[in-house]
C-alpha cells in the first residue's frame, strides 16, 4: 500500500505481489524461531533485550515500523528521502528524547533504524536509552540502545522532527 511523505511524495517500496502466490511469506512460528535464535546469540554476549513486543508474520521492517505504522517494507535506501521530506533534523545524542530516531551504521552504511521510546537522565547525563525496533523480517523488540544484532553495527545518528528540539 502506498506511503506518502509530508512533501506528498510517495515512498518507493518493493513490489512482491507477483511472487506472493496467495501465501504469506512467513508464519508467526517462523518469526518466533528466528527471533529466539537472535536472542540466544545476544545472550551469548551477555546482552539481553527488554521485551519481545511482537512476532507478527506481516512483512514490515524497521523503516516501515516507524514511518508507515507497521504497514510496509521500506528499504533503508529510502530513509534519507523520508528524513528530508518529513522535516527531520540531525540532533546530538545528548539531546535525544522519546519519539526521536536512532540510526545504526556499520562502516559507512546505514543498517538499521529504531524509535527511541524512553530516555533516563541524571543531570545532563543520559543514563539509559530504550528503543523499539523491528529486526528485519524477525521480531519487533524493545531493547537498550546498544543491544542489537552485530550486523547492525553501532548507534551513530540521531534524528528528530521536532521543530526546535529541546536541549536538555
Amino acid at each position, binding site marked *: 500500500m502506498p506511503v506518502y511523505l509530508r512533501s506528498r511524495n510517495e515512498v518507493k517500496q518493493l513490489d*512482491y505481489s507477483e*511472487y506472493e*502466490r496467495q501465501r*504469506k511469506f512467513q508464519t508467526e512460528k517462523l518469526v518466533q524461531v*528466528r527471533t529466539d*535464535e537472535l536472542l540466544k546469540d545476544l545472550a551469548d554476549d551477555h546482552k539481553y533485550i527488554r521485551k519481545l513486543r511482537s512476532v507478527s508474520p506481516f512483512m514490515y*521492517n524497521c523503516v516501515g515500523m516507524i514511518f508507515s505504522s507497521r504497514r510496509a517494507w521500506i*528499504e533503508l535506501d529510502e530513509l534519507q528521502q523520508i528524513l528530508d521530506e518529513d522535516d527531520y533534523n540531525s540532533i546530538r545524542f545528548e539531546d535525544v528524547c522519546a519519539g526521536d530516531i536512532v540510526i545504526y551504521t556499520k562502516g559507512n552504511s546505514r543498517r538499521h533504524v529504531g524509535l527511541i521510546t524512553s530516555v533516563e537522565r541524571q543531570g545532563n547525563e543520559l543514563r539509559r536509552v530504550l528503543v523499539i525496533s523491528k*529486526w528485519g523480517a524477525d521480531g519487533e523488540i524493545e531493547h537498550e540502545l546498544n543491544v542489537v544484532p552485530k550486523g547492525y553495527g553501532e548507534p551513530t545518528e540521531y534524528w528528530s522532527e521536532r521543530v526546535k528540539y529541546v536541549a536538555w
Partner: protein
Amino acid sequence: MSLGKYFSIMESVKFEVLFSIYSSFRHVLAEMAENSTLQGLIDELLADPMLVSEIHARIEHLLVEIQANGDMPRDGCIAGYLYCLWKTDLAKAYDASNEVLKVGGLWWSVQVALKVREYVDEITDSIRTSSAIDEPTEYTMSDRIQLDTVGLLVVELKADAFVIRAEMKDRQLTLLNSACQDSVESDRNEASVSDTTLQYSLAPTRKFVPAVAG
C-alpha cells in the same frame, strides 16, 4: 568440507538469521559476499563444477518442500545457494532463478533470483546490441581477444552448453576452463563492477563474439 555439511549449516536457523535481520537487499548481498560458509561453498564449486548440479538439485528439492508445506520457507539458504550458483555457473543460476520465481512466497531468494535474471538479461541484450551494430568477428577459444565488457563472452545459456569460467582480476580476464587456459586483456574499467569471478556458458557450436567499442 562435504556438501552435506554445507547443507546442514546453510539450512540452519543460525544461517537464516544472518539475512532475515536486514532491511535492504544490498546489505544481504554484502553479508553474502563476506560470509565464510558461502565463500567456502563457492570455492568448492569452482574446484569441482560437477557439484553445481547438486546445489541446483538441492534448491529444487527445497522448493518442492516449500510448495508442499509453506509453513517454514527456508529463504536464507535458498538465497545462499542461488548466490553460489550465480558466482560459479550462470546458466544453472538462471534456471534455478526461474524456478524460485515460479514458486514465489520467498523474500530475499526472490531478490537474488531477479538480480541473476537482470544480470543475465543485460549480458544477452548487450550481445544482441553489439552483434546488431557491427559484424562480429569470430574468435576461436585459443585467440587472445580484446573485450570492452566481460559479459560479451556469454553467447548462449544452455544447460548442456560448453562451460567457460573466467576470472576478472586487475582488469585481466583469465579463462579458467580446462579447454582454454588463455588470458585476455580487458578494457573494462567500470568501478561499479564488483564481481571478481564470473562463469559463462558457450554453446559448443558457437565461438567468442568480441565486444564492440563504446
